[in-house]
């Protein structure tokens, strides 16, 4: 099925890979070929089986049937350490870092440099600093990983994968948490590795990236192999059509704001060391975006408004009334909801089912006379499973077993279900496939039409430009500008976000 080209010899060949989970046929005869110095993109809708294929390659899951060849010879990858030995490095979609350890301890976990039988922390720190520099991370070797932002953690993951020589490097949605600048850096790195003959598998839902970096594209749909072709032979529309199996317009539907009263006003909000003197307004029926580089304080502002973190100064007004918010519970009772960017640690109870997670933030809505009503719970879950196309064998399926993008949808569903007046969405479409993205945008538009206020944090400029009615830009913990949709361009936003240095 691979195209017959006379490019370099196949480094990695996966043939007829099959894998089933209870209730789910995750892979149904998938082929993937990667040549030396080639970037093979793997695309498909949420739950199409991309991560599963990668986990099999990494020895984290066992295939039911199929064959893996490396440099022409069949290999067995029964465990992650087998994969390591074969030179297969994986950057997982869900991080595998130990939050309680420092950056350098994570990077060198299990193979710490030693001197006279003891860990040589000096050398570890020096090597680690070099790696962090190479990937452009701001994190320092001795920082605790649990304290880092998601983007920094992502960069640490990449540094970790690069800390040992790789023959095959797999990147499962590395860009989902990065902004343009970090992404440029990452692409530089990928090109560099490519020149050194490393074969790479690149997974992303952002098709622009695929066209920028990938040599070939493999499309999966419902666990089946649809097509493998050189990137240059495909258009964006081709790829989407192969992914969803039909024509799909993936333009962002834009609406006009029907703004009414003020829904949320923030005055002089300050949290020392994170952001200072932040002032802004979100009106009913309006989608406002908070743009900025990773680390500019957007997430911190959102968490502070939501009461997840304490503030040092400032006022929050909901519908013109000052709201005293000391905890998420307070803000929820004022009608504010926050869908966090980090779904696994902050958004979901992985050991509970889909329906329990969807309804978690508003248990009262599914209770009758003090008892949970299965009927109401199921109805709520089914509604969002349908609306957001959450791919799950049943509404009782443990969220832990869903694909990354489908987990993200569950987080969104949870907050849509609360019917909040003000919805703060931190990277709402991270890791979500193109089709569903469009779905989510129209959902946001619907909410606006119904008079809700939405504050969206996003690192994807096209998304911001397409969806938001108004844009605030943050830089280094301060609001540095406001743009109306009509005046906003990628360049102007980046100008503000970087202070003009990096237009």
């Amino acid at each position: 099925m691979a195209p017959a080209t006379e490019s370099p010899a196949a480094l990695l060949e996966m043939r007829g890979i099959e894998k089933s989970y209870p209730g789910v046929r995750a892979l149904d005869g998938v082929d993937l070929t990667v040549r030396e110095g080639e970037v093979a993109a793997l695309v498909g809708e949420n739950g199409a089986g991309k991560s599963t294929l990668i986990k099999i390659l990494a020895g984290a899951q066992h295939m039911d049937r199929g064959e893996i060849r490396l440099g022409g010879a069949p290999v067995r990858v029964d465990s992650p350490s087998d994969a390591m030995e074969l030179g297969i490095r994986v950057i997982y979609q869900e991080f595998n870092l130990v939050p309680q350890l420092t950056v350098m301890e994570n990077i060198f976990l299990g193979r710490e440099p030693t001197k006279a039988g003891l860990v040589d922390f000096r050398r570890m720190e020096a090597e680690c600093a070099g790696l962090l520099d190479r990937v452009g991370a701001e994190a320092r070797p001795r920082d605790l990983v649990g304290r880092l932002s998601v983007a920094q953690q992502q960069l640490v993951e990449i540094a970790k994968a690069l800390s040992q020589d790789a023959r095959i490097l797999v990147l499962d949605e590395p860009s989902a948490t990065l902004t343009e600048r970090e992404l440029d850096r990452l692409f530089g790195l990928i090109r560099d590795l490519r020149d050194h003959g490393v074969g790479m598998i690149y997974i992303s839902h952002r098709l622009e990236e695929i066209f920028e970096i990938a040599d070939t594209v493999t499309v999966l749909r419902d666990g089946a192999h649809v097509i493998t072709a050189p990137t240059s032979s495909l258009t964006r529309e081709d790829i989407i059509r192969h992914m969803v199996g039909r024509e799909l317009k993936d333009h962002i539907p834009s609406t006009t704001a029907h703004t009414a009263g003020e829904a949320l006003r923030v005055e002089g909000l300050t949290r020392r060391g994170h952001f200072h003197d932040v002032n802004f307004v979100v009106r009913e029926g309006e989608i406002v975006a908070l743009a900025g580089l990773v680390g500019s304080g957007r997430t911190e502002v959102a968490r502070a408004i939501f009461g997840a973190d304490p503030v040092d100064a400032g006022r929050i007004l909901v519908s013109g009334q000052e709201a005293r918010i000391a905890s998420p519970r307070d803000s929820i009772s004022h009608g504010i909801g926050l869908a966090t960017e980090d779904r696994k640690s902050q958004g979901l109870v992985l050991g509970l089912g889909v329906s329990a997670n969807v309804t978690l933030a508003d248990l009262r809505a599914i209770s009758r006379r003090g008892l949970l009503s299965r009927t109401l719970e199921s109805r709520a879950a089914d509604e969002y499973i349908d609306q957001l196309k959450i791919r799950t064998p049943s509404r009782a399926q443990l969220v832990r077993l869903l694909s990354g993008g489908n987990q993200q949808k569950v987080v969104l569903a949870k907050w849509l279900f609360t019917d909040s007046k003000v919805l703060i969405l931190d990277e709402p479409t991270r890791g979500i496939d193109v089709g569903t993205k469009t779905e989510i945008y129209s959902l946001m538009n619907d909410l606006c039409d119904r008079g809700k206020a939405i504050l969206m944090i996003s690192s994807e400029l096209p998304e911001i430009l397409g969806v938001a009615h108004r844009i605030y830009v943050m830089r280094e913990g301060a609001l540095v500008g406001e743009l109306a949709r009509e005046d906003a361009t990628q360049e102007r936003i980046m100008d503000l976000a970087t202070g003009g240095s990096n237009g």
Partner: protein
Amino acid sequence: MSPVPPANTEATSPEERSVAALRRKEALSRFALAGTLVFLCALFALTTHNHVFMKSTNLINVASQSAINTIIAVGMTFVIVTGGIDLSVGSIVGLAAVFSTGVMVGGLGFTIGQYRVDLLPQLPGVGGVLIGLGAGLTVGALAGLFNAMSIVRFRVTPFIATLAMMLIARGAGHLYSVEPIRGVPPAFIWIGQGRWLGIPIPVYLALTVVVIGWAVLSKTPFGRRVYAVGGNEEAARLSGIPVGRTKLLVYVASGLCAATAGTVLAAQLQAGDPKLGNAYELDAIAAAVLGGTSLMGGRGTILGTVLGALIIGVLDNGLTMLHVSSFAQMVIKGLVILGAVILDQARQRP
């Protein structure tokens, strides 16, 4: 890959077949525990002299002996599902036993100089029994509240906080009375030794606690919060769940369950001995864990715990009937718990 449509009639596609397989696996694991119980009963029925194990008198005995542990284990299950642990329950059993009987026979009061201040009167008959029971349960709830305060307010880990309470409650019981308190009223003894329709009252009490515990954990918003807090505390907090209050309530519930067990035990023995309940926390934890409750939090059911408690009760009773020495019993019980948990974990793996 595609989500399986619900309510299908014929299992034909691979997905549907594997869903069916999943259902079977779930059902199997649920019956594995019950199966173990049945197996043990059959084993003891065959090996005991004249099959006395299966005699209804003995089965009633088993139920009655398991009642105390079941009551404690229900509270323990709530605590463990939140990701905590309660090591103080055994000591609370002793404290509640001695305190409730003490108040029953002597009221509660103290003397300053020549004045005696009565906080609780000593009443004859049922009134006195009720006051004593109320006092015992209150002290258990307070001990639980104290645990919760250390854990929620001062962020002491549950293990340490309840370890401290284990000492405090045991010490307090002995300070209250070194000697067992005797001469309790017949109405009180009835709670431990009485029967209705041939079945001992403690069994009914245990059943009541089980039903309440089951309903609360699986049918109420509070129960859902308990799972959420244990499954992912931060996500629970960010979903607006009152994490502190939820934890507080489970430790109070655990204290209450332990105190209930303490008063029942005192009634069975017709005396409030401050030494009662020694090491009972271990049986309660074992029952919960046998029943599939995860010490990591977020997972567990009351039904499982009941089966766990029954397995322990059957083992205790059966092995005693076979004249297995108490030390050998400990070895066997330890191995059974280990085996059950290993099996359970194997089952959990995807």
